[in-house]
């Protein structure tokens, strides 16, 4: 475990914390960045995947001959061609739960085969692939493959999948139950609820949503028969993870025979960290055909194959006193894992959600139980804010319901129950220990900034315009900084979750930083350069940042859960400190003075009290490169690496306030103002974080207002492209009012907390609270998302949900 200090960031060159322009932007603005679909290796053949058109069926036969005869077709392959390939594994099995899934050869649960040969379990389940000279030829040939299906009954809801007599998805999983998982103290919670002055309950549907990065997924496989090495270019947010999973656990090839490269990746939000069948397929088919094989998904393909998010049905209860003190919270959740356990889906649906449900509140008793079930839908995975957004939603809905029940202002109830500053580190009783925070400061700032006190007057004014104005508050704590490897292993994560960085100082004084993380649009090149430059006291323009190629970068787990700045950046900072420390030791030799007289400043060293006896950073770099005159205990050159495994997670938090206006005639909900005050500890580049916060809020508003993955009773995904799945557009959102508080985390040397996706956590709760507030006089206590105009219009007319 790496020792950490929790100190404020270094101020060597003062560039950390500055809103430097993103150095990635010019290339992106000129359209010159290379994404997977832009990669064109000589001799490339093109792959298309035949996905099941039905949600649940036994495959009786597959006939591929006609397809093989078509022009340009090089190969048609089915499951029978890949019998020696291991199933794709699931590596996050909720801690303490016995997995009932058939085992993978390495003792892991085997999630799914690369191609399905016997039973299809969701629309899009891959059955066969075609490789052809052109993408069009490959796609056309799919239609010539004949598959005979024997239909099986379908189930698409988790609670229904667990009912007696429900269709069974996997022989080895009786009753479709992957996991029954709990956290917190059941007896204590039940007792507190039984003894409470007031209890409120809600039945909530946290609907399934689709992350929808604008770049669909893609993969290019390139096998080199001379060296026996495989190269995979893929839309991945974790190239090292994919290398590990594919080489060791799927293909069974030596680790050093697989190179994974993440080129520019067009958004991910969780979905591109997962292992998908196309990745091993392009590699295996490249070897079989002796040519690079490329696959680029369609939008409909993405909707039917890339992991989806959220999808809980919950019964939740809150207990409290008449005067607004919350005494207990309890959640029973039915989580829909889809047809197979995705790479880390079961962990997302349980630990990430359940341990977060008490949010920013100091509650004596809390308990969460999750029934994670298989259904005939696309496998569940992470989605921007995953788990934490679902947790915040239930808690923040409950608090409003409770406030309504006891006739107290929702802001007053919240304020009364916030974890007090002096209680940190705070054990939330559900398994998380919050590192630091001043919740009241944060909350008060947001409430003040939003003009909360003026809302009654604004409501009255809105009514004169035929609008119902509502205001909704939501607070949250988001677990980030995944993570302490040992702690994650206790959660059931099969793998280390540390992060690494290498820094090499070149003879001419320029610096290269290489990290194991990989950007999906977070300007890593800019921010990590700031971190290194700040520690070393040099100009960030002289610092180059590399990542995303496993042949060049040190190991790392990648970008997910808003971890890069609180995991990879500390690794950069600690590595820079190693460089600095070595330069001080060597500087003493070069300057001919004792080490304690060496002053490191502005990247160079000088003698204390004698600035004439000095060496610049460039001079030091060259001297270290030559290595002349160095004593035996100081190695030449400047090349250091750090593996950062923090002692604990970090816990950003915040308060959001949504103001909506509902049109009395149409039921249309407009977000007219949105205030957010988030606390992500020390921030490396506020310009870049601002963009991520704004995008995150918009994403959360999307779930509240319009997004839903809709399956019909046959298990067909109705919302399978962007004409049927609504994403927020520019006219759907106003400018937001944003501010921050800064509570450094003691768990990393930058005092950083996760930032990228945290603002996706509360908006859905804030907006639904606002809409319910606007409709409260009609007796409305809850509305399920998404808040479409029709749904709201019906409630305006007194119809039941």
């Amino acid at each position, binding site marked *: 475990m790496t020792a950490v200090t929790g100190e404020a960031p270094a101020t060597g060159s003062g560039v950390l914390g500055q809103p430097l*322009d*993103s150095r*990635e*932007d*010019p*290339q*992106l*603005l*000129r*359209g*010159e*960045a*290379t*994404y997977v*679909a*832009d990669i*064109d290796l000589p001799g490339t053949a093109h792959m298309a995947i035949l996905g099941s058109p039905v949600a649940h069926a036994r495959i009786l036969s597959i006939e591929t001959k006609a397809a093989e005869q078509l022009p340009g077709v090089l190969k048609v392959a089915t499951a029978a061609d890949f019998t020696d390939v291991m199933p794709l594994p699931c590596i996050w099995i909720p801690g303490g739960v016995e997995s009932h899934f058939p085992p993978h050869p390495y003792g892991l649960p085997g999630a799914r085969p690369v191609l399905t040969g016997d039973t299809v379990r969701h629309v899009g389940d891959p059955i066969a692939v075609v490789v052809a000279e052109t*993408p069009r030829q490959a796609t056309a040939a799919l239609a010539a493959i004949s598959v005979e299906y024997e239909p099986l009954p379908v189930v698409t809801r988790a609670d229904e999948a667990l009912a007696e007599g429900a269709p069974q998805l996997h022989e080895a999983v009786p009753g479709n139950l992957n996991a029954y998982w709990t956290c917190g103290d059941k007896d204590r919670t039940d007792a507190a609820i039984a003894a409470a002055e007031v209890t409120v309950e809600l039945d909530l549907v946290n609907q399934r949503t689709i*992350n*929808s*990065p*604008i*770049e*669909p997924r893609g993969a290019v496989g390139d096998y080199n028969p001379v060296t026996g090495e495989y190269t995979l270019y893929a839309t991945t947010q974790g190239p090292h993870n994919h290398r590990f999973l594919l080489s060791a656990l799927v293909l069974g090839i030596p680790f050093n025979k697989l190179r994974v490269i993440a080129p*520019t*990746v*067009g*958004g*991910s*939000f969780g979905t591109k960290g997962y292992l998908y069948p196309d990745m091993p397929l392009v590699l295996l088919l490249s070897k079989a055909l002796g040519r690079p094989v490329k696959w*680029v998904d*369609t*939008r*409909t393909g993405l909707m039917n194959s890339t992991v989806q998010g959220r999808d809980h049905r919950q019964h939740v209860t809150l207990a409290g006193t008449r005067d607004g003190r919350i005494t207990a919270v309890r959640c029973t959740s039915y989580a829909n894992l889809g047809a197979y356990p995705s790479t880390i889906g079961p962990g997302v649906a349980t630990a990430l959600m359940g341990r977060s449900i008490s949010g920013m509140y100091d509650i004596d008793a809390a308990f969460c139980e999750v029934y994670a079930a298989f259904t005939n839908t696309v496998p569940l995975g992470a989605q921007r804010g995953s788990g934490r957004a679902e947790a915040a939603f239930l808690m923040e809905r409950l608090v409003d319901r409770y406030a309504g029940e006891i006739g107290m202002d929702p802001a007053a109830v919240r304020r009364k129950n916030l974890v007090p500053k002096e209680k940190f580190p705070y054990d939330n009783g559900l398994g998380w220990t919050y590192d630091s925070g001043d919740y009241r400061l944060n909350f008060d700032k947001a409430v003040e900034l939003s003009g909360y006190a003026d809302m009654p007057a604004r409501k009255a004014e809105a009514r004169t315009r035929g609008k119902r104005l509502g205001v909704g508050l939501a607070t949250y704590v988001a677990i980030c900084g995944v993570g302490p490897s040992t702690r994650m292993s206790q959660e059931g994560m099969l793998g280390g979750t540390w992060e690494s960085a290498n820094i090499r100082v070149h003879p001419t004084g320029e610096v290269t930083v290489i990290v194991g993380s990989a950007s*999906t*649009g*977070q*300007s890593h090149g800019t921010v990590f350069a700031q971190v290194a430059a700040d520690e070393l006291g040099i100009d960030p323009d002289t610092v180059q940042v590399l990542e995303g190629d496993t042949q060049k970068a040190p190991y790392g787990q990648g970008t997910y859960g808003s971890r890069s700045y609180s995991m990879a950046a500390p690794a950069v900072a600690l590595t820079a400190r190693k460089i600095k420390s070595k330069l001080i030791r060597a500087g003493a030799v070069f300057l001919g003075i004792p080490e304690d007289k060496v002053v490191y400043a502005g990247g160079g060293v000088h003698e204390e009290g004698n600035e004439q006896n000095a060496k610049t950073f460039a001079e030091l770099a060259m001297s270290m490169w030559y290595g002349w005159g160095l004593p035996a205990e100081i190695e030449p050159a400047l090349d250091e690496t750090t593996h950062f495994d923090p002692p604990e997670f970090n816990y950003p938090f915040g308060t959001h306030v949504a103001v909506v206006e509902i049109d009395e005639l149409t039921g249309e909900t407009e977000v007219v103002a949105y205030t957010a005050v988030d606390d992500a500890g020390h921030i490396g580049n506020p*310009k*870049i974080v*601002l*963009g*991520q916060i*704004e*995008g*995150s*809020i*918009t*994403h959360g508003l999307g779930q509240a207002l319009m997004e839903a993955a809709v399956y019909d009773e046959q298990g067909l995904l109705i919302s399978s*492209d*962007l*004409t049927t799945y609504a*994403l*927020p*557009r*520019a*006219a759907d*959102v106003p*400018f*937001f009012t944003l501010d921050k508080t800064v509570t450094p985390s003691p768990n990393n040397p930058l005092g950083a907390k996760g930032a990228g996706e945290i603002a996706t956590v509360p908006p859905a709760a804030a907006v639904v609270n606002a809409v319910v507030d606007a409709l409260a006089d009609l007796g409305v206590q809850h509305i399920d998302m998404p808040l479409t105009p029709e749904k709201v219009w019906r409630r305006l007319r007194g119809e039941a949900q």
Partner: protein
Amino acid sequence: MNGRPEQFSAQPNELLVERLRDGLGLTGTKVGCDTGQCGTCVVRLDGRSVKSCLVLTASAAGGEVATIEGETTRGGELSGLQEALRQEHGTQCGFCTPGMVMALGELVENTADREAPTEPEIREWLTGNLCRCTGYHSVVRGVQRACATARSAAGQEV
């Protein structure tokens, strides 16, 4: 094509975006949705922004097509709009960015000698382009900045 003549035979069902990316290697134009919803494939045809996944190559015959590659030389100086978007960090993963630049160029150019577009007008103009990273805020600020600069250069009140 970006001011240069290009001669080729197109299949009747060939889409303009396919010709640009696969035929001419102009990969700055992206494919995001296949249904004309996302706007990553926007180019300008005879000066008007169009979604090149909804245009048959044959129907563009004789027209002037401008793509993101024609906005600057490779590695070259950014246009006014691109520079404004850079300053406002109007991009994150960058996949939607070329389509946005091509769609917004028309709006910014037309503002120099007219009234500056309002925020709702900018947002309305942007509704044909989806972005999942930024939530559009920095893009809208970028357009406001670009319009102000364009008007200032044209001697208009900003």
